[in-house]
């Protein structure tokens, strides 16, 4: 039978039984919608996480002292870290830092502020932008100056300091002068230390004098591309084994972190997709149900068509086309709905909205597959009907 005629037939049949069609559509819309929504949200989250790397560059590594060292008093010495670029050529710059949380405010109303002791290089490596004032330099050694994050500035304003820049603030038993404010940085993921927005950044020498635990456990470094990462890790490891009496270190490159994150993302997307698929299967069963009803209701029509010479395959394709059409219409609405939901997600998280074209193509593909799969059994039932019994019904 001509495909065009079949399509027209399917359309008339679907529009004639509106209520039934709408019920089946809802199922498939929710199914496809949730798969697309989930995958699109996954794509938005991944894009956001990768953005941090795009912004910071992937030439950054994090070096931690291995957890196996703790308790033996093994921690980095500031000068050992600072001399690392002299011994390992591919390390261009290092930025050691230590941190400690303090609470700001009085009584019950307090807010947490992250104190960070850093060196001059910290700002450059983390690509921090100064909004007001200036950054900490190595000339600020032992001085009680701090540069605060955007969030920390807001906390200060909340506690009545209308102009945080230049003000004197009490942080963990000391009074610091705010000499700069940095722009907001995106949170989460990436190589940046956590909590920069709510941080008060001071010089590392000041931090070592005032923090309760002044050990340096971690530093960031900017590296070149001359050495492969395995070689680089080896060189850094050797350096500390030699210089710091067997101190073992753990080097993490941006690449590794990206890979790890992408693997996690895949798992996350897969999980979300699987949840959506359950809805899709339920929707598909709805389609099958509706198609079975349609076949039963149209027994006489099937009998007439068979008497007029329709092949079993003609009847089968007629019903499969109807079911696929139903699923494609549902799929289209579902894709629109799913994309809209992911847009809302992006809107409320204030993350960048990305359309996952993969998800859209997948959506149409899955809709067709659901139509064929769940339409097959009803269509086969229809095609195998005995023409005489069908006519008599």
């Amino acid at each position, binding site marked *: *039978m*001509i495909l*065009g*005629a079949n399509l027209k037939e399917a359309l*008339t*049949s679907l529009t*004639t039984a509106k209520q039934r069609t709408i019920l089946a559509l809802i199922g498939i819309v929710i199914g496809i919608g949730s798969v697309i929504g989930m995958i699109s949200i996954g794509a938005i989250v991944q894009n956001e996480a990768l953005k941090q790397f795009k912004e910071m560059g992937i030439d950054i590594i994090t070096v931690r002292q291995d957890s196996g060292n703790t308790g033996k008093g093994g921690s980095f010495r500031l000068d050992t870290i600072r001399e690392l670029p002299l011994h390992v050529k591919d390390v261009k710059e290092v930025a050691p830092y230590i941190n400690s949380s303090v609470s700001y405010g009085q009584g019950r109303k307090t807010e947490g502020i992250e104190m960070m002791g850093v060196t001059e290089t910290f700002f450059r490596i983390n690509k921090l932008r100064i909004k007001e004032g200036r950054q900490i330099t190595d000339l600020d050694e032992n001085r009680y100056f701090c540069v605060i994050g955007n969030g920390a500035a807001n906390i200060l304003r909340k506690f009545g300091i209308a102009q945080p820049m230049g003000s004197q603030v009490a942080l963990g038993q000391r009074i610091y002068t705010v000499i700069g404010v940095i722009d907001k940085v995106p949170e989460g993921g990436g190589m940046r230390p956590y909590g920069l927005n709510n941080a008060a950044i001071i010089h590392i020498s000041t931090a070592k004098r005032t923090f309760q635990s002044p050990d340096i456990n971690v530093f960031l470094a900017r590296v070149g591309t001359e050495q492969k990462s395995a070689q680089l890790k080896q060189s850094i490891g050797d350096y500390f084994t030699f210089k710091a009496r067997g101190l073992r270190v753990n080097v993490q490159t941006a690449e590794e972190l990206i890979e790890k994150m992408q693997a996690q993302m895949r798992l996350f997307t897969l999980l979300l997709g699987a949840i959506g698929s359950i809805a899709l299967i339920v929707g598909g069963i709805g389609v099958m149900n509706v198609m079975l009803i349609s076949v039963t209701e149209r027994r*006489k*029509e099937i*009998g*007439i*068509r*068979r*008497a*007029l*010479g*329709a*092949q*079993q395959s*003609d009847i089968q394709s007629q019903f499969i086309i109807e079911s696929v059409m139903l699923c494609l219409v549902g799929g289209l609405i579902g894709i629109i709905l799913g994309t809209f939901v992911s847009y809302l997600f992006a809107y409320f998280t204030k993350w960048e909205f990305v359309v996952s074209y993969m998800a859209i193509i997948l959506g149409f593909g899955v809709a067709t597959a659901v139509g064929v799969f769940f339409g097959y059994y009803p269509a086969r039932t229809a095609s195998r009907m005995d*023409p*005489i019994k069908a*006519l008599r019904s």
Partner: protein
Amino acid sequence: MPLLVFEDIWKSYQVGPTVLDVLKGISITVEKGELLAIVGPSGCGKSTLMNIIGLLDKPSSGSYHIEGEKIGYDDDRILSSIRNKNIGFVFQQYYLLPRLNALDNVGLPLAYRNVPKTEIADRSMEYLKRVEMQDRAYHKPDEMSGGQQQRVAIARALVGKPTLILADEPTGALDSSTGQDIMNLFTKINEEEGVTVIIITHDLKIAAQCRRSLKMIDGRICE
């Protein structure tokens, strides 16, 4: 060569423990161009006979030839194709598809032959004219009277240029004057197109208008 040859056709049904013979050895020969009535009271097996002639059912035993070809019953595709090309059905209840207009209903048999759309429309219209239903081409079946629907059904049976029109109680649902119109149409088709018409009926007045009529009683033909 005769159009149809029935040789000792039996049809039996298993009803519980007993075997019920509906057709008991029917042998008929139908020549091309005949206008034949098969008459009999209800329950005599004439519907079963019609289903077997129309290839909608298969006999329990016996052989059936159409234009010299023996019918094998194992390939549904061949049976469907013969129904489509060689046989035109007219039913008591018209059996038009309610969602399609008259023109599309008439075109259905051609649609299963991959005839191009425009040609289907042209030929359907031609046959609607022949049964004087061209004014109703774009009406749906429920907007037509019984007699009009039956005319459309006859156009549908003719559109594929079959060699045989098989009509099962075609006037059974119509009043006598409309029924007579339909009968006249069959006579006209038979004369003008030379197509063989087999009418199955319980109405002796209808049978009397056919050139040949076969009486069927209790699964047997008594000429």
